[in-house]
């Protein structure tokens, strides 16, 4: 479904990602893990199109999208729930959700999606007229997820959905991610919380200083990682 081939991405003037390749199959939950500053977020932004890839290609559903601007990628079915949520805090919950469906014209389907999101996160329905900035951290994450889903994505990218949340909320969020995946949406997950992420994913990439260090099925990767840690004393 998504195939990234040898991209270089710069963040400002600093090269953040070098010759990175990865691919995500339809229906999968793929995970990208790595330490702080490894370039995970930059990778997602390049796939989303908010940062340009200086080299290499990005293909989505067999079509090359390397030069397509971000806002058009949304229409193609790619959505990113960014790190730190980046909801529009001065807009209401309802407006945030509506913006998720900014590019869509199919009113009926939008309504259906909105209802679905309300069943996933009932609390959003209660807070519909509240300013998003006044929500709690967990609620904001739900809103960010909901906003991403409102664009009716086929590929949903999540950037550290568990960041800064209480453990109990994290469990809830992960339940929802599973639910979303079950409904047929491909998920690309970026996490520092490796254990949580590995549990639900079917493929994993480990990033280090802008490159993929290792990849494979989560169990194997975990095993290899443990060995490496033992060897290198990391």
């Amino acid at each position, binding site marked *: 479904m998504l195939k990234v081939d040898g991209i270089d991405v710069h*963040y*400002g*003037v*600093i090269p953040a990602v070098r010759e990175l390749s990865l691919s995500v199959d339809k229906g999968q939950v793929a995970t990208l893990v790595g330490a702080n500053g490894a370039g995970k977020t930059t990778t997602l932004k390049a796939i989303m199109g*908010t*940062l*340009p890839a200086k080299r290499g290609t990005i293909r989505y559903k067999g079509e090359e999208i390397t030069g397509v601007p971000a806002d058009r990628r949304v229409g193609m079915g790619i959505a990113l729930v960014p790190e730190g949520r*980046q909801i529009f805090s001065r807009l209401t919950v309802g407006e945030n959700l509506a913006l998720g469906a900014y590019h869509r014209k199919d009113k009926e389907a939008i309504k259906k999606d909105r209802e679905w999101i309300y069943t996933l996160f009932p609390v959003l329905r209660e807070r519909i007229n509240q300013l998003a900035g006044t929500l709690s951290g967990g609620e904001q994450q739900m809103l960010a997820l909901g906003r991403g889903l409102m664009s009716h994505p086929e590929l949903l990218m999540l950037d550290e959905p568990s960041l800064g949340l209480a453990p109990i909320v994290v469990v809830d969020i992960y339940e929802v991610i599973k639910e979303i995946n079950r409904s047929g949406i491909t998920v690309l997950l970026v996490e520092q919380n490796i254990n949580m992420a590995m549990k639900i994913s079917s493929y994993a990439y480990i990033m280090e200083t802008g490159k993929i260090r290792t990849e494979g099925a989560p169990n194997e990767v975990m095993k290899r990682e443990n060995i490496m840690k033992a060897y290198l004393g990391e």
Partner: protein
Amino acid sequence: MFDIRATFSKVDRRLMAVILIAVLFLCLWVASTAFSKYIVFIITLIGVYIVASASLNLTNGYTGLFSLGHAGFMAVGAYTSALLTFPVKGREIFVIPKLPMFLGGPEAAWPFLPALVMGGVFAAILAAVVGLPVLRLRGHYLSVASLGLMVLVTALAMNLRNLTRGSIGINSIPTYTNIWWAYGCAVVTVYVVWRVVNSSFGRAMKAIREDEIAARVQGINPLKYKLLAFTIGAFFAGIAGGLYAHISGAIRPYAFSFNLTFQIVIMVVLGGQGTISGPIVGTVLVTVLRYVLKPLEEALGVYGLVELIYALLLIITMLRKPEGIMGRKSGGPRGGRWVGSLGGKKS
């Protein structure tokens, strides 16, 4: 290719600086004897503006305070030094008040240097007093407050008629400023700025510019450093004002208003904020450009052409090189063209 910077770093920088200054003054000497008074005047004027722009760079470039009040401090320096040096016999005709006893009495007129320094001191005192409340503001709020300070100074200069003669301004100020005074002051200013920014003091200033909260965590008191930078900047602005008064021989309140403030800001930003060479390059470019284009303007009879070309070049430069001619792209997302403010800036 011959790498100048590598060679630079090998030689002792201090020696290099001394040689540079010697070469500069040699060039100035040649210029002052070889060229007509008109060209020498323009060269001198550039020196005066360098004092102003280099000092503004200290606050705007290195400390990240976007001050628009520089012309106000120049006004203080200009009026102070002009009033102090005004010849005694001319005071009657020009209705300039005689000096009070503690400044030397009615029969005294100050020599240039102490008057100049006094102008700088007055400007610095004003900056210190006003800075204490105003420097707590950030970004555009500080810009407007400093602009307000400038308007206040202008309003006072306009209305304290017994002291400043109001809108008619002060004329026939002795024209003491020559090429040596101008460049002497310019060299001192640039040297002081250079010393300041390369000291622990300067590192603190830059830390504040990059991230005030992080600087505070490291135990830097932002207000103290901002105030010091603001005061030093104002001191040299006062000097620049004094030089300006004694090169043009005439000042009026509106000479130190929006036009001058914006012009100096343009010089600094065009050359490159936060670099030593930036303001100098900006000043030279802007001033030379104006005078080079003048004959063209007169030959075509299209008055205002200079401004048109100037604005056009300004726009093009800023679009091509937003960090200024000598500026370096700052690392990280904030300086980057792509992400920049459209990116993750939270406010």
